[in-house]
């Protein structure tokens, strides 16, 4: 996972504390609720200049840092913005 992704994600996780953010980090458990998911989505789309496909906007995508990052890199690749990934 890229540093700019983990930096973007960290403020949304109010229960992260001193834990290291890894691909397995459970986002809901760390405090991401549905309202924040939307703000996070907007932040991702602005930062990476991508649009996550509708079929990725489900609980599975927002489950862990790793699943979300995977969706971002897939969208970046598909949208010809490989430099973002």
């Amino acid at each position, binding site marked *: 996972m890229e540093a700019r992704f983990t930096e973007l994600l960290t403020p949304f996780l109010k229960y992260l504390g001193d834990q290291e953010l890894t691909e397995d980090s459970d986002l*809901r*458990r*760390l*405090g991401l609720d*549905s309202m924040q998911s*939307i703000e996070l989505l907007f932040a991702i789309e602005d930062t990476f200049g991508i649009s996550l496909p*509708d079929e990725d*906007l489900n609980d*599975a995508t927002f489950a862990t840092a790793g699943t979300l990052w995977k969706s971002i890199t897939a969208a970046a690749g598909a949208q010809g913005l490989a430099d973002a990934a």
Partner: protein
Amino acid sequence: MSATQAVAPGTASRAPNDGPLMERARYVAAVAAEHARRHDRDADFPVEALAAMRETGLLGLTVPGDHGGLGGTLTDLLDVCIELGRADMSVAMILGMHCQQVAAVTGQAAPRLRDELLPRIAVGELYLASVTTEAGKGGHLLTATSAASSDHSGIGIDRFAPIVTGGAHADGFLITVQAPNAASPSEVSLIYADRGQLTIEESGAWNPMGMRASHSVALRLTGHVPAHQVVGEHGAFSVIAGEVFGPLAHLAWSAAWLGTATGALSRVVRMLRSPAGRRRFDLGSELLLGRLSAARQKLDNVHALLRHTEQAVRATADLSQPRMQLLLNALKITASEQCHAAVDDLVTAVGLRDGYLKDSETGLEAALRDLRSAPMNYSNDRLHQADGRLTLLDPEVRLA
């Protein structure tokens, strides 16, 4: 009470515990109807209807056949909730919520717990209540402030719940608690506890406007249960909430509400068509016909949305997609508003004597009071907030 009094007029003298599902449902509905006015007056639990649900196997409606249940589908559940709702909305909601608990056990519990509970539910021994409310968080499902303790001997529970439907009569409880050693309130576990494993203190009185027979009391539950009585993974209640509790609650509640409004319209039409009704009402009145039409139209709209949502849920693997969540919420909001509005139309249509008096034969007064709770049962305001956010997530507006 003598044995003959427990049987409603015109019903079989013995509870049908084999034969078609709807025959059993109609028997339970008849028992519920016979006692509905008394339980509404006294705001106590419909014990005769619960006994009939145990006897007919209806408590095991959605328990899979290989565990001795009736193996009912989602369609069966909704059909039964509509049928019971025609007689008594509290009874329909009680069964709907019980079946929602059963679905959590069937779909999410590990084999050991499933094998312990499902056969007991199937034979009518185990009526399950849901304990998800907590003081201070309202109906918010996905957090818990009450912590469970965990040691080598099992899970300790000390939980106050301000509203537990049927809590005083339940044989077992599915309880949300903060997972042992949780790092945040969003790590919620669902724990099964048998009545015999708990010390139960009931507090406060139940004296609501409607839904009086749901007997939704405040309970403090304390006890200690074996570790295997967690349903699903510790901390993973959000999965059960999203895949089971939310969808089934909205579908079964909407069916119960539709049943209540349907029963009300049916009684009004029978009253109007009776010789006495035809003497008192002008059935050619454009005003009366218009109002009957408006009520019927609302019911057909809710029914169409209910059946469409049912089909969409059956056909969709991932219910967390925005368009599915939006559809389920739209069903709940629409049913809760339109069923109440339909009964309100009927009160206007037939007037004070037949529509508004507490002892009017049409029973519209009770139906209207009961349905008034529907928009508050998981508040429509809260659902609209969620829907607004979900709408933002779906810029293409793909309809389910």
